[in-house]
């Protein structure tokens, strides 16, 4: 029963969805501050390669090494986000072009590939990786076992992050200020909120989340390094923020939905199930479904009622307001 296609898809949907969830939570924080960062894919890849580098080079015990790897991945993502933050907040560059530039700079044919080559990381299995850690009696429970208890610690950490961010946005002073900055920076400025500081802080936090998301791919899902290993997950994460109407709890549902879709292709191949051009449609499915859902939420009333932060994508210059 625990090996039926549905249970396996739900369980691996959660696993595959976790990097999407981390990345979209980070993007959500940046966008709530009014900064659109299209560099998620690039930040994820740099986090992925630096996290992988850490486990290959650090000789400490597994728990310590993996913790360190996640910290380094977060720092790497933060540094990448800092470039974007400086360009769009201080130098007032176009957020769209700067984000694209970040993905080109850091992405599959840029810095992440350079680091992977320069540090000789390709074609080796990871020395340490995340594995399910709860007692096996729990993991063997029918249906719920693999889905809820057969996950790595990252999954439970991501749940804690969802709760923390939801509370942060709705129940704390800084969270409310953040929303003000994203909706109307001029009003927030009048209230005495430091708009630039909020924007910097949350863009950098978004980078840290993207870095962790990347390392989740290379240390938990496919423990190895290949150029462009995230395969567009960063872009799906950006789309996810839109479907989730900028709310963390909906990000969680969406991430697992798309995670399950990403898990479908390898699972069908492993079971040798053929339905027409299986490789073609099962690999394309996550991308096509993302487009379908984007169309559904972007048209008509859904958009008007639960819209994006009003100042998303626009620089804030005090003298020009």
């Amino acid at each position: 029963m625990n090996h039926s296609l549905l249970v396996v898809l739900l369980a691996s949907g959660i696993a595959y969805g976790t990097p999407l969830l981390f990345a979209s939570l980070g993007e959500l924080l940046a966008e709530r501050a009014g900064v659109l960062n299209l560099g998620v894919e690039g930040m994820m890849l740099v986090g992925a390669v630096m996290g992988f580098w850490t486990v290959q080079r650090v000789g400490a015990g597994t728990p310590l090494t993996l913790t360190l790897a996640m910290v380094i991945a977060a720092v790497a993502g933060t540094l990448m986000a800092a470039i974007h933050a400086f360009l769009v907040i201080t130098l007032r560059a176009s957020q769209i072009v700067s984000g694209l530039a970040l993905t080109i700079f850091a992405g599959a044919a840029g810095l992440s590939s350079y680091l992977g080559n320069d540090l000789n990381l390709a074609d080796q299995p990871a020395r340490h990786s995340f594995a399910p850690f709860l007692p096996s009696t729990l993991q063997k429970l029918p249906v719920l076992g693999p889905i809820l208890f057969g996950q790595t610690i990252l999954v439970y950490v991501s749940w804690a992050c969802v709760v923390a961010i939801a509370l942060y946005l709705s129940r704390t002073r800084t969270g409310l200020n953040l929303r003000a900055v994203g909706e109307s920076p001029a009003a927030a400025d009048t209230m005495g909120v430091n708009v630039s500081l909020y924007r910097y802080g949350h863009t950098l936090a978004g980078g840290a989340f993207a870095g962790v998301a990347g390392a989740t791919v290379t240390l938990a899902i496919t423990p190895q390094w290949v150029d462009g290993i995230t395969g567009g997950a960063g872009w799906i994460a950006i789309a996810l923020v839109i479907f989730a109407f900028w709310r963390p709890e909906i990000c969680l549902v969406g991430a697992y939905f798309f995670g399950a879709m990403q898990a479908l292709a390898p699972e069908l191949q492993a079971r040798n199930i053929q339905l027409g051009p299986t490789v073609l449609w099962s690999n394309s499915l996550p991308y096509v479904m993302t487009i379908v859902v984007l169309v559904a939420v972007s048209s008509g009333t859904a958009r008007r009622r639960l819209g994006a932060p009003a100042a998303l994508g626009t620089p804030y210059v005090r003298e020009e307001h």
Partner: protein
Amino acid sequence: MSRRTHIALEQRLSRPRWLTVAVPVGSVVFAFVVVAVVLLATGHNPLREYRQLFDAAFLQRGALEQTLIAATPLAFTGLAAAAAFRMKLYNIGAEGQMYIGAITAAAAGLYLGGSGGASPFVIGAMVAAGCIGGLGWALIPGILRAFFKTNEILTSLLLNYVAGYVLTYLIFESQSYWRQTKGFNASVFPTGKPLPSSAVWPTWTIHLQGGIGLPLGAGLAVVVAAIVWLLYSRTRFGVEAQVLGDSERAARYSGVRVRRKIIAVMALSGAIAGLGGASQDGDFRHALDGDPNGLQKQGFGYTGIVVAALGRYNPFAVVLIAFLIGGLENAGNTLQGPSFPAGLVGVIQGIILFCALGGELLTRYRVRVTWRRDTRAALAPAEAAR
């Protein structure tokens, strides 16, 4: 007495002409300084690397020919991006539109081509088919944007992955019309069916560096640049697109049919990218390249965005920048190895783009730095004297 440095940004009322040239040039110089620091930090000698880079890009025997081969697709994808970005339609799907253009153009070439020399009719059909293929693929994000206001950045990008899977499927996972099925090699490693000789595009030899071939595609790219320039600067279409790019509301009030215009611009952009795909078939690969490590590994569509942004969306500047970035790409391929790791070229491109973006500030704002004495300290004695 204390002094305070005060930095203020003042909006410029007009942009001086010299700045629009000086700022990009200055950005590139600054970028190379930044890259030199990165190279030094990672234990490379920047001067040696730059010299090698320049030799491999332009000076070595045969270098210019390879640079043209790398630059031609970038000119197409750069023009595709420029045509759309100009009106703030961010089509980042040139990559996928190029694949689809390559597929349709190869179909035309395989179907119509025969033995004998290059045939203008067959080549014309391939050009048309490539344009139509790219155009069709670009219509998906275009129509979704026009009718449902769906973000075209995400849809056009996600479709790149889908187009990549289609391309791989046609050569590797099916017995399609494009796949070579005869011969010994076909059973060992799947490849595209070679184009018949009349579907292979001609080259013109220039007597330089011992003879370099100028591909037909490079000439077509210049023609396309001229067409895009004419369209945007000399026609009603261009003016309306420009207005729409600045303000959708203003465009609507002045009677521009917004939906139609969005779809037309996306179609134009996709057709140019698709033409780039046709040029890949006809000029360089002479078959449909479905290998995930072939055409798909090049990332022409993404580099085209760098090219377009550095050329500030001016079609002729885009062609020139494509040539320079093509040199960089070519040098990267030639030098690739332990002392020049893959990915370095992407890093350099990214840094150049960041510097150009940052430098943009200087064309919009005047930076005024003033040193003035602390006003409170200066006022205090005056107050006391009163």
